[in-house]
């Protein structure tokens, strides 16, 4: 159990933000995160390999369950509306952040998932690869392309 608590301590914030990004409100996020860790603790003794990657597989499946219908578009959270004072301040300071939010809203479901796992969940490329069940090389390439796409979208937004 000590190992589980270590993972819990190091991953809670990332799991919370990963779910929040997908669900968009505190109340449902609280419930789903509680659910994710309850599932994780029950299965903890049977888990082998990269446990952080496994935890985010549990997180991903739990959020998908929330939306239930396979293939349903999992929307981007209202980060602008519901974020904390810190985010509000940042938004005021940086037009680039506003543009970044807009850019995220235009991405495909798969691309948003990639952003979410890489930057909000803080997973490494190989962990994302395990979670999405694709090769690490493919993930690296997709992330690289995606960053380029986001950069272009942000630049376009800044010019406008």
């Amino acid at each position, binding site marked *: 159990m000590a190992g589980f608590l270590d993972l819990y301590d190091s991953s*809670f914030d990332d799991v919370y933000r990963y779910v929040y990004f997908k669900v968009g409100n505190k109340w449902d996020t609280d*419930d*789903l995160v509680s659910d994710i860790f309850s599932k994780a603790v029950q299965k903890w003794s049977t888990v082998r390999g990269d446990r952080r990657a496994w935890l985010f597989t549990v997180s991903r499946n739990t959020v998908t369950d929330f939306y239930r219908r396979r293939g349903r578009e999992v*929307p981007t959270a*209202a980060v602008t509306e519901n974020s904390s004072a810190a*985010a509000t301040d*940042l938004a005021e300071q940086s037009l680039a952040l506003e543009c970044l*939010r807009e850019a995220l809203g235009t991405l495909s479901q798969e691309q948003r998932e990639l*952003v979410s796992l890489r930057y909000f969940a803080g997973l490494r490329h190989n962990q994302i690869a395990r979670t999405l069940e694709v090769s690490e090389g493919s993930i690296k390439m997709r992330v690289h392309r995606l960053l380029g796409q986001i*950069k272009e979208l942000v630049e376009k937004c800044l010019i406008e």
Partner: protein
Amino acid sequence: MSDRVNKDHSQVEEHLNALKLGMPMNGELKRELRSRFQSEPKSAKRKIWPMVAVAAMLALVIGSTSLGGLDNQSVLAAELQIVEQFSFIDLITGQYGPPAVHGEQLYLPVYDKGIYRFDTTSVVAGEGLTPVLDHRNANQVAVNHAGDKLAYMTSKGVYILDLNTGETRPAIEGDDFTIYYEDPVWSPDDQSLLVTRREIEWQVHGHKLMSLEIQQIDLATGKARKLAEGSSPSITSDGGLIVFERDGNVIVKALRSQSFWPWDGLRKGAEQTLYRGRFPRVSPDGTLIAFVGTKGEMRLFDNDIQVRENVMDVYVVNLKDPSDQKQITANYPFSFTDEREWAKNAAQGSVLNVNGYYSYYNPVWGSDSQSLYVLKSDHSGAGMRLMRISLAKEGLDQQALVAKWLSASVNRDTDAARGLMLHPQDFSATSNPHPVGYTLVGSGQENGLDYVDALQYVAYTAQPWYQVRELRFFLAQAGSGYLIDEVRQTADWQLYLQNGALYLEHTNELQRLLSLSKANLQEQELGAISLSPSTGTVYVSLRGERGMTIHQLQNGELSYLFAVGGEDAVISSLSEANGFLAINYTYSTELGRQSRGMLFSLADRMPVQIMGRADLAYWADDELVLYTERDGQVVRWQYHPQSALFKLWP
């Protein structure tokens, strides 16, 4: 070129990280869940430190039983009951200072924004806050007894705002470099202000405190006179005593010689140390002092390894009998370190310091001397939050007490729920499944013990699972009121989906209510469901081509009621009470994912138009509690469907 690409990408990555850090994080949930997963600590040798040292009271001479000039009716602090406590008044985004209260008006300084007034009786949901002063550095406010002037502090000095005219004038000013004035408090006659004068000396690294003294500023002449050395002054309603803080102690000082017990040994200018504590504040009626104290405990392990626990709480003490006190918050120790594991590897003589989950600051009395407003922060980094605690000599009646507990568990306010328990336990109100409403159903006695029965409704977020729990709350007499001694589940009805069918389970009886295949619902998915405890009717939500639809289930047949949101709406929970269905759902907008609470009248078969916008709704007995969020404000209000009446502060 490659470097340039990486650099450009690193900027995008930096912004993504900034976006991530700006997202909310629930530190309270983190702590609650962790404690649930953590195994029980093994016992260690325990040594209890003195909680709050009562100092030198024995030196006082016993005399008359009343205190000159103050209310002669003795109020026993220990008998005060906490009749209401809630701690999530996120009124406005920003860093709060301590509020000031006059009647139903609450003045709240918000750093970098200004001072706001909040009308606690307002019935306009989401419109409780009114800007009073646009001054980004205004902090620490005090409203006079007449309610027409507001003293506030800035880095330059203490100023007075005329609330009728909007005019501001200085009461006293420092130099904004080495001399500062803070902690303004009005004298009983409103003719002067008590302030703390802080003098510092700048040094190569930081500054050194040169003096800290309490001064009285005559508002007519502007003259200042020193009253004591210390800070956080407060004054009794007769002006005879001041109470303040010095070196972590709460101290009483006589401004004139006292002739009544227990202060009759206190000559003019004499001081008496009362407690270890901070931020003392005398109630407007002069009978009680509220302050923030710290309870210490030490656990000893082998090799002189120590765990030192220091947990901050708010206390109320009887000014006429300072040994009479009551702890009115229920903080608890908090650490992410497993102390047993830590102790195994710690060097000899190591000390692990553990503090409380919450930190409390600046208790402020309501005008009626029966409520306290307290600032608190926690480990989540969410900033200051304002908590209101209502006290009364007569406690809540039994049913009201249980209703408060159930309400606190539904709205996830564990701090408030713990305050209503005889043996506060560290429990989590946030979980899946989680409570979404309750109804009180009766009361009585069992083996000589008073109890209250209630039904608690429990749902699983967006999933076809619902439970009605019958709970029996055993109550214990505490002072003149009650506290919850034990909660026991006596029965339950569980509604769930299994193998394509909806079942109702009760006391080992299993009833199949609906087969999805027989009802030709294979292409649809069952979402949140609900069971009416009064009629036994089941309500189900379905996801299909028409989006989210809600149906009533009777005799194995579904009848359509209405559709919710757009195609991508997700219903988080349904709960029925009193002929109305409360629905929480989320849906997509141009601004992203939004959440809503709504009400549906089963009699009229149509949604009920509720004033304002609600983001979350749950049942508190026969009333609907709604949360509204707007521009960073979260306001909780209450709606009575039968009468269509609203009120704040449930």
